[in-house]
Structure formats: C-alpha cells, structure tokens
C-alpha cells in the first residue's frame, strides 16, 4: 500500500494567494475574519459544501490556492447574502465567493460542473443579443445535462407554453446589441490619450 500524505508542507502552499485575494475590491476584509463560523451556520447550502464558507476564508489566508479554487463550494453559493448580513466582522463573504469564481475561471482550475458552464453560456448569449432568452438557455442546459430529465422538463415547458410564458421561437434581443458591445469593447481597450 502506498503511503499518501494528506497534509501539505508549507512550501507547497501559494504564499501570494492571500494577498492576491486581499488586493481585489473589498478584499482587505479578508484579514478581519475571526473564524467564528457564523457564515457557515447561516448558509442554507453549507451542509452540501466540500468546504464551508469559514473554511474557505481560512484556506485563502493559509495559501491553499488549489483547494480553494477547485472547491465545489464556490459554485454552490447562490449569493443569497445571508452570511454577509450576519457576519460580525463585516466580511463580505458573498463577494469573496464571486471573486473566487472569477479567479477559478481565469486560472482554468475550477470544479467541473454545470454551473460554471451555465455562467459562461449566459455571458455569451448576452454578448450576442444584449439580453437573455430564458427558453433558449433552458434548452441549452437540457441538451447539456442529457435525457435524464427531458420528460419532466418537456412537461414543464408545455405547461408554461400553454400559458404564454414560453415562446419557443422568440429571441429576446436589443434593437441594437452593437451599442452594448461598443461599451464592453471600450472597457477592454487600453485607455486612449487624454481619456481619464
């Protein structure tokens, strides 16, 4: 039997991770956490998480970059802000979860599951049309997740269709999606001379 070490040596941690997270907007609050666990107790989904919100904060501070970014927890967070409101140290935990999702996607080291894919697909659709077409998003998700729930999804879609709440051939789009894309392009471009 191979001996498996389950604890990391200090040199295997990412010493810069905490300061990287702390440098994000609002991130300085990272150091205010008192590890009381009120967030985990308040969170309606912490019982399904591989690391509770308190552990996530602790792991960031200790430099466990890989464990944090690959954690399923950050994608289970529904951003209901219950933890943020209850935190006695005013740590905006929900905003940390968002920041971690962005870092995980940037690093391409994230928990492979449906939600990261949904977020990216959502963004693509809005980039194309300026708005989201719920029915089309639902369709894409159904195709992605496979036939297991197709029967119940079809029944649901039929009910909504009959009541005029699902228009199968309608695309919700701006009159001029290009006017939105122009803003987003300008944001990504390096600032021009003389522009603040």
């Amino acid at each position, binding site marked *: 039997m191979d001996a498996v070490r389950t604890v990391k040596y200090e040199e295997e941690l990412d010493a810069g991770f905490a300061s990287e997270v702390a440098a994000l907007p609002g991130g300085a609050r990272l150091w205010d956490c008192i590890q009381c666990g009120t967030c985990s107790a308040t969170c309606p*989904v912490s019982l399904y998480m591989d690391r509770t919100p308190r552990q996530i904060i602790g792991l960031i501070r200790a430099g466990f970059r890989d464990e944090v970014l690959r954690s399923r927890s950050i994608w289970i967070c529904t951003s209901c802000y219950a933890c943020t409101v209850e935190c006695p140290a005013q740590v905006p935990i929900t905003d940390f979860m968002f920041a971690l999702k962005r870092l995980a996607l940037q690093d391409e080291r994230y928990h492979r599951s449906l939600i990261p894919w949904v977020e990216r697909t959502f963004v693509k659709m809005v980039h194309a049309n300026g708005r989201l077409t719920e029915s089309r998003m639902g369709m894409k998700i159904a195709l992605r997740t496979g036939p297991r729930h197709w029967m119940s999804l079809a029944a649901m879609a039929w009910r909504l269709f009959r009541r005029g709440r699902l228009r199968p051939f309608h695309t919700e789009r701006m009159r001029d999606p290009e006017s939105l894309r122009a803003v987003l392009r300008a944001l990504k471009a390096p600032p021009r001379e003389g*522009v603040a």
Partner: protein
Amino acid sequence: MSGEYLYYPGCSLKGAGAPYERSLLAVFERLGLRLVEIEDWNCCGATAYLSVNAETAVALAVRNLAIAERTAGRDVVAPCSGCFLSLTKAKRALEESPDLRARVTSALGQASLAYRGTARIRHPLEVLMTDLGPAELRKRIVRPLKNLRLAPYYGCAILRPYEEVDDAHTPTVLEELVRSTGATPIDYPYKSRCCGGMLTTGVPGIGLRLTEILLDAALEAKADALVTTCPLCQYNLEVFQGRLKKPRLPILYFTQVLGLALGLDETAVGLDQMLWRLPLAPGVTA
C-alpha cells in the same frame, strides 16, 4: 412624488415572468402611476457576469442607468429582485471606487453615454408602499380579499445585503401590502430564506431541497397562496411543485394580489398565466 417612473423590465419579465409584467403595468396604471420603459435596455448582468468579469458586470448594469439618466429626475423601477440588486450593486461599486468609475464612464463616453450617478433604483413594492403608502392603497381597494391567507415571501435580493427595501431580519412591508388588500398575512419561519436560486437547475439535488423547505413551511402554516416579489423565486416555487410531488400551492406576484383587490379582473393581472390557480375565497369573485 412625480407619478412617473422609468421601467427596467429585465429579461425574466419578458419570459416566464410575463404575468409579473402584466400585473405590474395594470396596477400602476390603475393607481395613476406611469411606467415608461427604458429605451433599448440590456441585461443587468445577473450573477453570471459577476462570476466571470466584475468590471464588465458593472458596465453592463450601468449602461442602463446612463440611458435612464437622459430623463432627469425620474427613478428607475426594477421589479425583478435580481435586476434590482445588480443595478444597485453596480451603482454602489462606482461610488466606492473612483478608479472603476473613471474606466466605466470613459467606456460609456465612447458610446456617447454619460453616467452621473443620479438615478435612484427602486423596487415596485417599496414604490407602492412609500410613494403611495398603505393608507392611500386601502382607499383604492374595491374588492377586499377577505378570508384569504397569504404567505409573504421576500426572497433575498431586496433585503440583502443592502436592506434597500426593508430590514434584513424583520421585514414587514410585504405583510403590510397583503394586509392592505384585506387578506391575512400568515407568519412562518422562512420568509427570506433562499429559494434555491439557480441551483434548481444547476444542482437540482440541492436547489429543489431549498424550494421544498419553503413550500413545506407555507403549507404547514395553511397558506392559500404564497406571495413573491421576484420572478426567479416565483418560478422555482411554482414549476417544481410537480417534480417535488407537493399539494398544489398557488405562487403569486404581489402585484397580482394587489391588482385583484383594486378591482382588476383575473386576466388583467395574468392569473390565467399561472400554473396553479388561486381558489378565491367565498365572497370574492374576480
């Protein structure tokens, strides 16, 4: 009070949230308040953009505010709680970071849009209860919804994290609205607990459990219907009842309940578009 507002529908009210839009417009019209749709608005960014790129998320939301500000002195009414929070959060982000504000206003400027940060973002529940007020509402009620027991459900975004609409721990504004229609607001423990959000689709094993907890609480408190303020909450609580094998509980928008009490008929408030219909109490006919 000007009586005129700029209306930011958001994508859901043009989709499965259609009865919310229908009842909202009908109620505002009946009360003599005008809603003017913001010209060529775009998606608020929802939580998806915040998960991918924070700066884009803010710019996306703020573009709508910049268009709204072309009409000076009018508040923006955002009925979807998700949109309401995205817009509010973006506005606050620019207030907190001059650097981000400079970058976003410059990008908007290149698309000939100016953002000054003057537009107020409001949820219609708060608009009705503040600008009109419960006393004024009561005067307009022509069909009191007597004997109807309604479970008020706030969801998250209009209370947390900013307490924009009411106190995060003991909100009362929705109860007040229900009371002003003549119905009885029932007390139950999970008025602002998470409805499951996107998890009902993303991880149904978790999401549907959250939905189930709320339905069970409302059913146990013997509610005739549950009243929501958000299209995602409404959707989760209504359409998954079949899959959860629950006794039918109508899930209504607060604007539908108010509309009925104001004398609007069932179709005018989109009750015909709901999956599970409201059994109207004796003495109340729509």
